[in-house]
């Protein structure tokens, strides 16, 4: 149904013939035409004129050769412009990709956190334990236990740890409280005169499988992890030296 508020004008009839109206307005115009024979005749005349002119002007013969040549030249020109417009973007993207690929190691290293920041909290605890252990060793009054009851420790804490080298003399072994529960602390004398403190505890902290050593003041701490247990070896040694000792210890079988 036509909307009586939207009068059909001459412009609407034109737009109807030219196919410029949306479907809803087309229906309104068609409804109007069905009730207005004169307007319908005018629209038909417009359509007939349109079709006659289109038919007459179709296939106006082959264009002059010089026009076709010019048109081809223009097409080549536009094609080159289009390619040039695309080129900088392509080459920049390609260049960036190649650079990123070549420098991937450096980039990964740069975005990875520095190793100092990655030192797990149990390694800090190991350092503290080492300080305390040195203090205990210097005090005659402190009771010391130079025997390691691996089975007893495992039953009490489910902590297993590698067997130390026979060269390492046990100075003290005991259970200690830690942030993550009960830990094991063992003091060794590896024969060099500089005591080492071994520390093991159940921990959720991340740590590498193979020991890594960092220096902290005059001391160094090496830390690693097997299963749910974190291990640390602390001593007043250069980190490289401590790392070598920790690697040896970590490779030993557990009791």
């Amino acid at each position, binding site marked *: 149904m036509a909307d009586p508020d939207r009068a059909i004008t*001459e*412009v609407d009839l*034109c*737009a109807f*013939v*030219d196919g*410029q109206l949306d479907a809803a307005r087309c229906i309104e115009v068609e409804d109007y035409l069905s009730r207005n024979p004169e307007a319908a005749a*005018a629209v038909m*005349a*417009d359509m007939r*004129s*349109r079709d*006659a*002119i*289109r*038919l*007459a*002007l*179709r*296939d*106006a013969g082959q*264009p*002059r050769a*010089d*026009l*076709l040549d*010019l*048109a*081809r*030249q*223009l*097409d*080549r*020109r*536009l*094609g080159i*412009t*289009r*390619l040039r*417009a695309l080129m900088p973007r392509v080459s920049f993207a390609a260049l960036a990709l190649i650079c990123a690929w070549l420098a991937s190691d450096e980039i990964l290293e740069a975005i990875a956190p520095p190793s100092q920041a990655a030192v797990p909290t149990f390694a800090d605890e190991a350092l503290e334990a080492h300080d305390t252990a040195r203090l205990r060793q210097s005090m005659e009054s402190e009771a010391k236990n130079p025997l390691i009851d691996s089975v007893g420790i495992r039953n009490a804490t489910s902590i297993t740890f590698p067997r130390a080298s026979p060269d390492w003399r046990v100075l003290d072994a005991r259970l200690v409280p830690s942030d993550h529960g009960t830990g094991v602390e063992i003091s060794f004398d590896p024969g060099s005169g500089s005591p080492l403190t071994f520390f093991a505890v159940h921990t959720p902290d991340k740590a590498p499988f193979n020991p890594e050593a960092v220096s902290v003041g005059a001391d160094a701490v090496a830390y690693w992890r097997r299963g749910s247990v974190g291990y640390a070896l602390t001593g007043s040694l250069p980190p490289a030296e401590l790392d070598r000792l920790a690697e040896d210890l970590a490779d030993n079988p557990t009791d």
Partner: protein
Amino acid sequence: MLHMVVGKWFGNRTVEHVPAMRRYACTLVGDEQADDLVHEALTRAYASHRSFRQDGNLGSWLLAIVHNCFVSGWRKRQVEGAGIEHLRHHAPAHMPPGQEHAVQLGELARAIEQLPLDQRSAFHLVVVEDLSYEMAASILHVPVGTIMSRLSRARAALRRAIEGRPPSLRVVEGKNG
């Protein structure tokens, strides 16, 4: 696939629009000088190829250049109402056989020829080239409303011209239909 890509970048696209450029040039300056106007337009298009937007409509860009060439130089040098003889020239070849249709088309051609240039160009772009009102408006550098009113006036004039033809033509139409 490669062929399609190459065709897209280097295809004969302007070549496809040359016929439309010639038709519009005929409407503006008549059959005799149409090719010369198209020649000038293509030369100017080559010189100003950077003004073509890569995502633009090539056909309407080329028609706009034909129009600009006509407005900026041609019209000054040429007689504006040179006529559109081409309609009558092509009519016998492309209409169904029969003297009556040729006469009808001749009348229509003369009526279009007598339209003011502004109405004639708007009529051509929308009716012959089937462009949208918006596209025709951008080619002619006028608002869409102006295109609509020009078309409306052109059609009214054409209807008046055709209604004034001899009654025998209507009888022939009835016999054919």
